[in-house]
């Protein structure tokens, strides 16, 4: 079905011709049918086949099917309801009710300036996008290489943000691009494949998952895998981690981009191998008898090795969502020197760092603001008060900063309660065994936290 929403109301319509279609074609067909200015939220064949690695896609302003709510298998949930797409037709996009308009505008202007004044959100992200991280994470020795075997690779930069920005510009794409109208950070991009297809944005996590994680250094092969995932409606992080597990099993060779592309294409066919890939890393590990499976609570670990970026290791282990880098992005203080500095290879301070970030993130995520505002907010004492001011102006309330912390805590508590009822225990708040047993080069680190992790949710 298609759910169409406009100012007159909502109606369910037959999916018709878009059933079974890939993401790019789905967006194109629905925009043609319902108007070029509609927004399309969709699933691809992976979601329709109820694969647990399926995400939910959104079109970007140019109509590329590349902006994903990728993680957690939400595409399969949408698929299970028989919902192929949601079409939003709103001629009054910006007419959101605001209680005190002038107070809100003043706070919003101040907040935009806070973002533009910070070097990360005002300069680094616009110029190179999220993939600006590839080289610094690699140099810091915590870029997962060859399914989390090593922490640094001499070819990582070949799929990094500097190279990708050059390719975007040279091929008529965009190195600086807003994923939605009005964003001042503009960290998105438009990557054009060699044959002229517009892929959409190549992001850091994806470039890592299909690049260094598989020892693939050709940016076009990486972007091709990204295109396939966008079209299938598959989480690129989970797909990259899963291909790493398959390479570990010997199903495809490391360093062979063509073999990885061919394996991903099986997903769309619904073949047995394709279904294993679509089911994610944990399932693939069980099917092929692999124990080096980088996943927590059934979700693949993203692009920072927890042994030399330990704050994020704490987040991977304890986040109610499973291995999620954004839930408490300790890379900030561990590697990027944003919001202070906590040595990434030592245990001191990591539990507090992850806890505080998880609480703040749960609250910021609830506002609808992009998480990347955190780079500026962590370094600017005016940041959080300005967010609170926007909320108060918008809803006519009088929240304080303490209320925001309490909000974040209460969200995490509800999530934990859900997990407990679903059968999760503290044994699930641990990293896979190999992170405790295998040393990571170049810093010769192992992950050590076990029982200490039970203290993260001590509030």
């Amino acid at each position: 079905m298609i759910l169409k929403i406009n100012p007159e109301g909502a109606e369910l319509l037959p999916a018709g011709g878009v059933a079974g279609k890939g993401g790019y074609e789905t967006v194109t067909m629905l925009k043609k049918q319902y108007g070029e200015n509609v927004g399309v939220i969709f699933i691809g064949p992976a979601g329709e086949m109820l694969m647990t690695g399926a995400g939910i896609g959104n079109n970007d302003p140019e109509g590329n099917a590349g902006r994903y709510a990728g993680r957690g298998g939400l595409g399969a949930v949408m698929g299970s309801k028989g919902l192929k797409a949601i079409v939003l037709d709103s001629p009054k996009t910006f007419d959101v009710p605001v209680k005190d308009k002038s107070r809100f505008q003043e706070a919003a202007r101040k907040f935009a300036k806070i973002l533009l004044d910070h070097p990360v959100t005002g300069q680094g992200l616009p110029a190179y996008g999220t993939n600006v991280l590839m080289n610094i994470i690699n140099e810091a020795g915590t870029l997962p290489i060859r399914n989390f075997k090593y922490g640094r690779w001499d070819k990582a930069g070949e799929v990094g943000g500097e190279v990708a920005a050059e390719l975007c510009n040279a091929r008529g794409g965009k190195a600086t691009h807003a994923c939605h109208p009005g964003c001042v950070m503009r960290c998105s991009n438009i990557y054009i494949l060699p044959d002229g297809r517009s892929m959409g944005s190549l992001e850091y996590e994806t470039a890592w998952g299909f690049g260094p994680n598989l020892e693939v250094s050709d940016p076009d092969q990486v972007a091709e895998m990204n295109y396939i995932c966008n079209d299938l409606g598959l989480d690129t992080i989970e797909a990259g981690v899963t291909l790493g597990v398959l390479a570990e099993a010997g199903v495809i060779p490391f360093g062979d981009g063509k073999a990885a592309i061919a394996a991903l294409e099986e997903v769309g066919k619904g073949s047995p191998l394709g279904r294993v890939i679509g089911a994610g890393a944990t399932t693939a590990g069980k099917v092929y008898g692999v124990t080096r499976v980088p996943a927590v609570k059934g979700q693949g670990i993203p692009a920072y090795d927890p042994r030399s970026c330990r704050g994020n290791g704490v987040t991977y282990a304890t986040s109610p969502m499973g291995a999620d880098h954004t839930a408490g992005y300790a890379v900030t203080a561990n590697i990027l020197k944003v919001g202070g500095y906590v040595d990434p290879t030592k245990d001191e301070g990591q539990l507090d760092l992850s806890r505080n970030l998880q609480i703040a993130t749960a609250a910021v995520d609830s506002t609808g603001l992009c998480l990347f505002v955190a780079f500026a907010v962590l370094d600017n004492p005016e940041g959080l008060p300005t967010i609170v001011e926007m909320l108060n102006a918008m809803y006519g309330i009088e929240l304080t900063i303490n209320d925001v912390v309490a909000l974040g805590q209460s969200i995490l508590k509800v999530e934990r309660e859900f997990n407990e009822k679903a059968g999760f225990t503290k044994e699930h708040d641990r990293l896979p065994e190999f992170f405790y047993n295998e040393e990571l080069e170049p810093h010769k680190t192992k992950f050590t936290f076990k029982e200490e992790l039970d203290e993260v949710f001590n509030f």
Partner: protein
Amino acid sequence: MQVEVRVFCGLECYIPGATFGQPIPVEITNGFTGRKLLETLNIPEEKAFSFLVNGRHKDLAVVLSDGDRVSIFPAVGGG
């Protein structure tokens, strides 16, 4: 004595002929600091937000040793 320097994210513009990520060999002497290295390479101190020696953050007073891998970045972030 020599160190191997890599610069990224636009810092290459301060070094004629340099490309981001390509190792640049720099001769050092006894007591050669990170600050001295930036001076030698004409990189303004305020642009060198992250200064890594062998993959670890150091402040600019760090004394460099033969064979060190030095990586210099402006302020970056993503996710």
